[in-house]
């Protein structure tokens, strides 16, 4: 069977059983086809807790590179399917860059998943520079305070906080247009930022 045909049939997440079923073939032959696809760079393998192997088969795997979504999924209990392709080659994006990217997507689930990054973020100076460049310093501050309520996070530096807190002339802004919280009014008031989450939305973190 040609690689292109195999790839078309098997694209997605598979186990050895599903490969056997899809190709209507024996287990030995299925292992051989997976071996061929892996050799050409199309397969990423993960082991589940019961030691079973799960194969992520995709053309994108051949391109290598990393994506912001892979980084978020690595650290977050909230897993996200990749809504768009954004692959990065030749460098590994920092967690600070990843957080800023996540906020800028304006996607509720991506932002929710990215809250877990506050556990690992240490370079507050880089985060401030990136946030300032993208004009989301207050959004980062508000999301940090929210993350602090539901998990143990690294301490935000006073310098970040002092620089990012709203001035008198600042108006309220949304993280996601039109969405505001009913449960975290105190954070919203502090940062003059409407948070798009209520307590129930954060259940994956508790």
């Amino acid at each position, binding site marked *: 069977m040609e690689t292109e045909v195999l*790839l078309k049939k098997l694209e997605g997440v598979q186990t050895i059983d599903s490969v056997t079923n899809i190709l209507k073939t024996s287990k030995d032959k299925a292992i051989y086809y997976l071996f061929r696809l892996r050799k050409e760079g199309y397969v990423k393998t993960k082991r589940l807790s019961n030691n079973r192997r799960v194969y992520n088969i995709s*053309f994108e795997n*051949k*391109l*290598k*590179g990393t994506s912001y979504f892979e980084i978020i999924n690595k650290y977050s209990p909230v897993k996200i399917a990749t809504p*768009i*392709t*954004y*692959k*990065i*080659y*030749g*460098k590994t994006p920092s967690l600070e860059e990843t957080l800023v990217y996540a906020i800028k997507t304006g996607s509720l689930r991506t932002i929710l998943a990215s809250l877990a990054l506050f556990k690992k973020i240490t370079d507050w100076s880089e985060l401030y520079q990136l946030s300032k460049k993208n004009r989301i310093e207050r959004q980062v501050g508000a999301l940090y305070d929210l993350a602090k309520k539901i998990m143990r996070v690294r301490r935000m530096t006073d310098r970040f906080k002092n620089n990012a807190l709203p001035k008198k002339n600042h108006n309220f802004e949304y993280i996601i247009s039109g969405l505001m919280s009913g449960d975290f009014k105190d954070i919203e008031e502090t940062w003059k930022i409407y948070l798009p989450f209520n307590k129930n939305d954060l259940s994956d973190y508790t």
Partner: protein
Amino acid sequence: MITIDEQQKLFLNIARVLNKTITAYAVGGTAMMFLGIKDSTLDIDLVFENEKDKDIFKEAIKSLGYREINAIKVYGARKNQPEMLVLNDERFDLFVVNVIDFVFSGNMQKRAESIHQFGENFILKIADPHDIILMKCATDRLKDKDDARKIINLGKIKWELLVEEAKKQIELGKEKTAFELGYFLEELKNKMKVKIPQEILDELFGIVKKQAEEKQKK
């Protein structure tokens, strides 16, 4: 010919010599490689949003040894030709917004959702398959029809989107678009036996007919 791995290494090298972040749109064989439709390409077709970005990119690839050649050899006397640079058998075709008789429109830019970033400074956005067909129609070089056939044969084409984009191109001043696209698709249908709905061809030539009637009135 350049393969996927070679192309990635090349883009990384280019990113290293760029001194500013440059965004380009891949519209030809390169785009097809990123979408998994092709293994290698002869020419790397890129569209830039402005002259300045194109010039910076051109200087970067020149510093890697690429030299300019005359586009007339490939494109004849057609309008909006690219700047062409070659090294061995690899070639860059660099366009700025206009691609021969087509414009890489705002809608096309929005549809280019797949993004690949090389190093810090080179961001490559991959054109949507529908727009690759339109760009293949615009350049219409030796292997462009074969590439368009490959994309159409994947069976994911929304034909109405092509017609809508043709109308948009006409609004943007590219009057020949409906004719060029209709002719291109008709040739694919007749010479290469590609399945193209007759009603789409009728719709495109209907637009051409209307354009002709309006011109006659004037």
